[in-house]
C-alpha cells in the first residue's frame, strides 16, 4: 500500500467527519484536531473508522503518533507494511 493510497483513505474518512474542510486549505503537518476542527468524539470516530478499514488496533497509547494528517499517514503505512 502506497503513501498515496493511505493518504486517499484518510482523506475520505476525514471528509465524512469534517466535510466542510478541504485538504488544500489545511496544514497537513499541523495539529489534526485544530486543522480539521474536530473534538475528542470526532477523533474517536475517525480512529474507529481507520481501525476497521485497515484492520488495526489503533491503541490509545499510540495517539501521540497520530497528531497530524502526515503523522497519521506514516503511522498507518508503517503498520500496514
Amino acid at each position, binding site marked *: 500500500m502506497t503513501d498515496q493510497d493511505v493518504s486517499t483513505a484518510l482523506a475520505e474518512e476525514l471528509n465524512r467527519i469534517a*466535510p*466542510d474542510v478541504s485538504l488544500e486549505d489545511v496544514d497537513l503537518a499541523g495539529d489534526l484536531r485544530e486543522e480539521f476542527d474536530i473534538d*475528542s*468524539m470526532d477523533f*474517536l470516530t475517525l480512529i474507529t473508522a481507520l481501525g476497521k478499514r485497515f484492520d488495526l488496533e489503533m491503541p490509545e497509547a499510540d495517539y501521540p503518533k497520530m497528531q497530524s494528517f502526515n503523522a497519521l499517514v506514516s503511522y498507518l503505512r508503517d503498520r500496514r507494511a
Partner: protein
Amino acid sequence: MPSLGADMEAGTLVEQLISPGGTVKRGDLVAAVETQKGVIEIEVFQDGILENWLVDIGAEVPVGTPLANIRAADEVSLSGPLGQPEAPTPGEPEVPQPHDPVSAPDLPEDPAPQDPSPQPAGPELPMPDLPEPEIQWPEDNIATVGQSRPRITPAARRRAAQAGLDLSSLGAQQTGTTITRSDITVLVETPRDDPLPDMRGAIAAAMSRSKREIPHYYLSHQVDLTNADAFVAKTNSDRAPEDRLLMGALFLKAIALAVRKVPEMNGHYESNGFNPSEPIHAGLAISMRGGGLVAPALLDVASLKLDELMHNMRDLVTRVRAGRFRSRELSDATITLTSLGDRGVDQLYGVIYPPQVAIVGIGTPSLRPWVHEGQVVPRLITDITLAADHRASDGRRGALFLKTIAENLTTLEAL
C-alpha cells in the same frame, strides 16, 4: 406538529416515513420535521394503522397541526390524528404520557364518543412570521428512497432549502463529490435579509428568554481529574476503538449521581413553579460544524452504566452532527451539561436552557500546580461551574451539588 422546544412555533414536514395503510407501533419513527434546529425525527405515540397524511411534504405548519390520521388497532373508523391525541377508548384507556412530545394540551378528561371524521387542523395558532420561503423537499419524499441522491452535508441542505435551490440541478450525483455549505453559498448570490437565520435564531430566542426570565446564580470549583484520566486510559488500553470511553461519559455519570443528592437541580420551572423530575434526561450541548449548537437529551442517564452512557452519547452526537434528532431528545432534557473539550479555555459559565433550572459547565482540563498529599505537583485539573435558577435553589445547595460532582470524579468509587 409537535412542539420541540419552548421557542418553536412551526415546522416543515420533510419526510413521511410510513406510507398510508402502514402499521405503526408506539415509538416508531413516522416522520421527519425541519425546524430551526435541524431535522427532527418524530416518534408515534400509539399503535395503529396510518390511514392518511394530512400535511404534504414541504408544507410548513404551526405547532399543534395534525400531521396524519392514525387508526388504533381496535378502531373501525378514523380516529384522532397524529399530533392531537384522541379521547381514550372506553374500556381501554390510552392516555399519552405527560412528557409525550406529540400530546396537545387540550386532552379530554373523560372518554368521549369517537368522531368518525378527521378533526380540523389543531389549535388556532397564528402563522409565525418566519423569514424562510416555503421549502420544497422533492429529494426527501419517501417515494424516492432507493434512487440516487446527491451527497450533501446537512448544513448545505438547509442552506439550499432556504435559497430555494433544486439540489438535483447541482450535478453532484454525476461527479460523485459532496455538496458543502460553501458550495451552496457560492451559488446563492444575494445574501439573506434576515440577520439571524436558522439555528442562530433558535439560540437567540431561547437564550434571550433565559436571560429575561431566569435569575441565574453562578458557582465554580476546581477538580483534580488525574485519577479519572488514569482510569479512562487503563480502561481503554485493551479496548477496540468502538468500545473506548471518553471523559465525557464520566462527567455525565458524576452529574447524574449528584442530582440524586441535590434533586432541585433537575426538572423544569413552569408557570406553577419548580417541578422536579424523577428521571434524569441530561441535555448535552453539542457544537455543530459551521456554527451553532444544540443540546439534545440523553434519556434516563441515572440508571446507565458508564459503557452504556458512552454508547448512547456516541450515538447521539453522531446523529445530531448528521442533522438527525428524535423529538423526545429535544423536548425532554431536565438538566444540561456543556463541556469545552480538549481545545478550549479554563472555564465556561452556561446559560440555562428554559424551562430547565441548571447547567453544568466543564472547562478544558490542563496540568496545573496542585497540592497533592502534602506536595505541590502537576495534576490534571479542570474548573467545573454551575449556573442555576435562584427560583429553584440557593447557592448553598448549588455548592453541595458541585462538590458532589467533584467528589464523584475524584474518588471514582460511585461511578
